[in-house]
């Protein structure tokens, strides 16, 4: 599957880049705002799971949301 090849290549690339000494251009002490909960894509897992289920059973698109749904496609 092409997607699996992409994953393997990405992992290989990540491993190779891991040896590079790229210095962080945003220093750790500059990340206060980034650590705030409002910067998270999902703050409340249970509520987000419900919303995701609402979309999943009514729309054909799925995946790549970072939230796992579940159950049937009951309409």
């Amino acid at each position, binding site marked *: 599957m092409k997607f699996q090849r*992409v*994953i393997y290549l990405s992992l290989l690339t990540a491993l190779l880049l891991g040896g590079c000494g790229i210095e962080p251009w945003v220093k750790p002490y500059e*990340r*206060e705002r980034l650590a705030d*909960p*409002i910067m998270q*894509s999902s703050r409340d897992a249970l509520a987000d799971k419900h*919303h995701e289920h609402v979309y999943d059973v009514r729309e054909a698109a799925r*995946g790549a949301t*970072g939230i796992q749904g579940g159950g049937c496609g009951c309409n």
Partner: protein
Amino acid sequence: MVPPVSREAAVAATRCSVRRGLGGGRLVRRWLALVVGRDRIAAWSQMTQQGAPQLPALAFLGPFYRGAARVGGLLGGVLAGANAEAVDLPGDRADVMYHSFIGGGVVANGPAVLVRKSLEDVVSLSAFNYVDSVSNASIDVVTTASPYKETRVETGVGLDYVYRDALISLTASTSREPDYVADSASIDLAQDYFGGMTTVSIGYSKGWDTVGKHNDPSFSAPANHWQYRLGATQILTPRWLVSLNTEAIADEGYLQSPYRVARVFGAAVPEVDPSTRTSRAATLRLTGSVGAQGAVHAQYRYFWDTWDIHAGTEEVGYSQYAGKRWLLDGFVRHYSQNHASFYSDNFTSEMTYMSRNRQLSTFNDLGLGAKASYSMIREPGRYEIKFNAAYEWIRFHYNDFTDIRTGQLYSFNANVVELFFSATF
């Protein structure tokens, strides 16, 4: 060369979150774990106990992270669902929720509970239970069958394990209703790279479904699902993050409904869907901190599959603290898709595959949502209890699915509500 950071700078950097009551000592430890790594916190703690005058310079982080990255092949570090963000163990919390969906003749509501507890700040265990009581009189049901009621119960457990800058998550869940059983298991791995500037995550899930049929106990058909996730989050500036999540899903088995019918020259015939499907999706998300206490996000997802469905989802949202106790969110979401290659509102010839599933038709929906969180009880550093209320209005409009009762294109409005208490401790 990474410049040194003083103890005051580190403490100041956590002050904002602590002031908002989002945790005290525990949050400080987690925030520091996020930005400097757990091993270095332990080293710092040891040095402090030995009388070291100040927080050691972060210069040593360079080789540390390079070393960690070299062993990144472990890809330890997982966020369930491949949510590509900085690696950290999820905080202890408990949620009790009432959820409701009302729209298109369907009423689905019920309670849900989630509990998460960490052990020794290395392992976090979680469990959830989710109940859907469904009263279904949707257009599909009222035009081809009789309205019905049923209950779906989903239960799941999870384990998160932190090793250095990596997180590994294992989850398992089962969903049961009278005519559908779905079991699934997943593993996700996440790893920080480049001094925590980049987080890479991968994940895999397998699902085993068994499709049944009311009033026909002899009917049982399997459907299997494989999900592959790959994502990355990149810090752009002290205020902006960007993430890209991708996911491929392969399905095989009984993918249609045993109840739904297609129409051929107006006559109802059982629908027949292909027994395989492969889909891919990619989501690009940009999040930025604006003003003193706000954040904005924008995201786009593109989806396509082997059933010739292409779909796009756009969403923008804004979050804002209001005082010390309120957090307000608002968002707009738009979704659109074209129909599957074997979909028709009314076929003019018999085909191998035929469906009139409106989920596979050409349609779009628009959602407007808002959420408010109120901090009821707060003891900084110990616990906090919040009440949360979320509401979304969604308008569905179908372009090639008619209401056969009226002959008009079908559309409906839906109201989605979530009311829940959340406790962090």
